[in-house]
């Protein structure tokens, strides 16, 4: 049964499955991700203050409004420069979303391309790519990322490229394995016998068939990339100040932790937690939905 | 006829699988009845998915997740196994009833020695230890014709050939001294010559120990060689049951005839008969007789009413309107 379903061309089921998919998607994840996307788009409009400038007439380290000394104009309090935390959080969603999505895109493109190349071309190309993958995997991703970031210098776009360059290995391995089995399938053999060029076979037959797996991997990578960005920013080798990024906010909050000014630490962390949780839930659902045979990816 | 109480009497057995929080029910076994005497061999034949394996697992009460016996009884040595707790069943499994699974490669634990795996039933059920246990394992391995058992029992499964492994699985089945062995397609994964050897071995062991055998297979040749009686299953039901000679000579159910017609005969010029249509989907069976969409001799009523068991001949039962009408006419 499973093989029968797998033989069917993708196009015939795609339209229907997208509709059905939209209905079955986990509500919480969709709400959080959709909400965040909206916030990121509209941050300029909905943020009450400028995220990079102190609030006029406010103090530094103001607590949230429900605590003594808190004010309604700065709902979640102010930071060490007197900037509005809520506004910084709202703007910070942009950094997390952009880095998370773009970093994953870069990683996915590199990994998928190398995976297809290794799996389809085979021979020494395969050997070279897989040995490089092994070498890349031998370094803990976060150490590698910190190292690269320290060498290249801090900026959001650098971080995107760096995280892409660090997290592509998993794609390469998985996609290569998939291509190895695809290569033996009838429709690929037929296309080759019919004289289609390698490039054409890859474009028409291989790529569409590994897209599901790549999508599932991507959904599971986004959260990892977001946490990695926050870690780099926290260490001071990520997004540079005064740009509002959640990891950077946590880093700036560190000196105040001992004074018990918890809101500076808790709010950005909860934001990271929520967005990563949502991507994980979404990814898990996508994995079961698109790829029931490889639930253990 | 005064008959001794049979060793195993399955009556009206119904097993269903519940999926998706109970919203989907698959009726895997539907009112199955048969009985088996000491030393007798019953063949259970049918296409894959016809409920043979589920029937066997229902007998020992080890259904996969989601499976449940919802009706009927399994009386073994005078006790209804369906009413027993798992704890009580554990004392039956491996000791009174043993099962041989189909895949000899997969049914042995790769990390344990042969000795350990063959010894387990005797260790847990008969409390054998030390030298007695060692001797017992050697004797069992000898019984299944493993050469130099005192050496081979220290080996690991991967060091054995497929045929040897399946014989080890046979030794495990015999280890508890069972009265009934259920063999679920034990030879499907073996070479033909190894198959024949294995079947001879089972026959020998049966002669020596007087154990009863339920033999699940889709190979009618094996049935003819091994069995005293045959039950043909289709869509979770036994559609025909008869002594083996009678079934082969005068098959009564159209499905049985179709099955027999799809076995190639040497020298025969007749075209091989194949059964039209798809095997039934147990989650959505047609009304009436489940075989009617594929039946070459279908009657009008087959689509609406499901036939009941009809006794035909001395000792055979079939579930078909053709048979019951025929009996009514004669």
């Amino acid at each position: 049964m499973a093989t029968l379903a797998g033989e069917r061309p993708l196009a015939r089921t795609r339209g229907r499955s997208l509709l059905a998919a939209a209905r079955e998607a986990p509500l919480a994840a969709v709400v959080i991700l959709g909400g965040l996307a909206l916030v990121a788009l509209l941050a300029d409009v909905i943020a009450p203050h400028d995220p990079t400038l102190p609030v006029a007439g406010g103090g530094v380290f103001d607590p949230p409004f429900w605590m003594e000394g808190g004010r309604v104009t700065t709902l979640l309090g102010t930071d060490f420069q007197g900037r509005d935390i809520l506004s910084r959080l709202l703007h910070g969603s942009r950094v997390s979303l952009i880095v998370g999505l773009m970093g994953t895109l870069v990683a996915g493109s590199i990994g998928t391309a190398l995976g297809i190349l290794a799996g389809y071309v085979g021979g020494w190309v395969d050997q070279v790519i897989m040995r490089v993958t092994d070498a890349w995997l031998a370094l803990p991703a976060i150490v590698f990322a910190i190292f690269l970031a320290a060498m290249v210098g801090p900026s959001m776009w650098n971080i995107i490229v760096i995280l892409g360059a660090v997290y592509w290995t998993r794609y390469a391995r998985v996609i290569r394995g998939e291509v190895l089995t695809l290569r033996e399938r009838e429709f690929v053999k037929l296309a080759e016998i019919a004289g289609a060029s390698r490039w054409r076979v890859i474009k028409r037959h291989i790529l569409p068939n590994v897209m599901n797996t790549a999508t599932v991997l991507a959904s599971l990578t986004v959260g990892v990339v977001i946490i990695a960005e926050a870690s780099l920013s926290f260490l001071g080798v990520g997004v540079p100040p005064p740009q509002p990024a959640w990891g950077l906010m946590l880093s700036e909050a560190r000196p105040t932790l001992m004074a018990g000014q918890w809101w500076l630490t808790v709010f950005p962390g909860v934001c990271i937690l929520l967005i990563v949780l949502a991507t994980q839930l979404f990814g898990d659902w996508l994995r079961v939905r698109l790829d029931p045979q490889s639930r253990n990816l | 006829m005064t008959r001794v109480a049979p060793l195993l009497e399955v009556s009206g057995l119904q097993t269903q699988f519940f999926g998706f929080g109970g919203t989907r029910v698959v009726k895997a076994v539907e009112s199955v009845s048969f009985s088996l005497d000491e030393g007798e061999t019953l063949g259970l034949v049918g296409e894959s998915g016809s409920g043979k394996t589920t029937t066997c697992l229902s007998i020992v009460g080890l259904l996969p997740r989601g499976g449940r016996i919802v009706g009927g009884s399994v009386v073994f040595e005078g006790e209804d196994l369906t009413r027993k707790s798992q704890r009580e069943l554990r004392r039956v499994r491996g000791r009174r009833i043993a099962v041989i699974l189909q895949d000899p490669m997969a049914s042995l634990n790769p990390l344990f020695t042969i000795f350990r795996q063959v010894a387990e039933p005797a260790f847990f059920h008969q409390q054998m230890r030390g030298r007695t246990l060692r001797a017992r394992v050697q004797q069992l391995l000898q019984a299944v014709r493993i050469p130099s058992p005192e050496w081979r029992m220290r080996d690991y499964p991967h060091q054995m050939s497929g045929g040897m492994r399946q014989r080890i699985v046979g030794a495990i089945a015999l280890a508890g001294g069972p009265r009934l062995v259920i063999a679920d397609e034990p030879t499907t994964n073996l070479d033909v010559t190894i198959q024949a050897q294995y079947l001879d071995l089972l026959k020998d062991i049966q002669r020596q120990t007087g154990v009863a055998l339920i033999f699940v297979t889709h190979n009618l040749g094996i049935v003819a060689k091994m069995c005293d009686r045959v039950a043909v299953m289709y869509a979770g039901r036994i559609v025909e049951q008869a002594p083996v000679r009678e079934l082969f000579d005068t098959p009564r159910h159209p499905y049985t005839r179709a099955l027999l017609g799809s076995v190639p005969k040497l020298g025969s010029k007749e075209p091989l008969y194949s059964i039209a249509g798809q095997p039934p989907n147990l989650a959505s069976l047609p009304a009436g007789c489940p075989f009617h969409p594929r039946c070459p001799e279908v009657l009008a009523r087959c689509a609406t009413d499901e036939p009941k068991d009809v006794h035909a001949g001395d000792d055979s039962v079939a579930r078909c309107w053709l048979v019951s009408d025929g009996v009514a006419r004669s």
Partner: protein
Amino acid sequence: MSRFILRRVLYSLVTLFILSATIFVIVRLTGDPLALMAEASARPEDLDRIRHQWGLDRSWPVQYATFMQNAFKGELGKSFNYRLPVSELYFQRLPNSLTLGIAATLISLLIGVPAGIISAVKVNTWWDYVAKGVALLGLSIPGFWLGLVLILVFSVWLRWLPTSGAGDWRHVVMPALALGWYFAASMLRLTRSSMLEVLGSEYIKLARLKGLPDVVVIAMHAFKNALIPVFTLAGVNLVVMVNAAVIIEVIFAWPGIGRLLYEGIFQRDFPLVQGVVIMAGFMIVAINLVVDILYAFIDPRIRLTR
């Protein structure tokens, strides 16, 4: 068996070669390390002298060859800042990182393995859902943020544990928990899936058919098979944690390897950074090799063939 080991060793050497060459090139591609570390007022001839002293005026292949030659002798270069061999600094810090890594591994095992087993044995019950929830949180909560929250709760509010530094066991608890948290989740997931796979296997079915008690089936038959990959991962994780705990060590001012790397980065001490990163790669390649060979010994299918 010996062919298997030989091949693994060869692969490991290739991996190490690519790894060290990559690091080496990246360090030099991103600009003149000396320009990054020198003060703006430094005289050009001084820079040239130092460049010559460090061998930076030679061609890359020559530099790399020298570097590898020294690396085989156990020397990874000299730290700019400490004026000490990098290897000495590394091994000074290693015991601290090991302590932290072992504690974190224990925590991840103590949480992940029992929860994973329960989750697999009681699959699709509320036990399983709770365990799945824990795993999800483990992968979603950033470890360093958990560390900050732990400090807030246990040091600032409750005043039970010290915030930073190394000393007795009380210093280890929070960093180990923050570090092990993520790994506990991955341990849980692996234990669960590995256990489920084994429990669904034919030999477990046969073990049940033998009438063995459930405890025996799970503890003897399923356990051994299911936990091999779990303990393998634990071993690899330990080495990763020893080398990758940068943020946790920074937060808790834990004097380990991660902090050494962090200091190296901010002091622009590129031989130190290069050395620590390469050592991390080296240790992980080594543990992977060890694990592969151990695997071969544990699993009779590999041990007794070839």
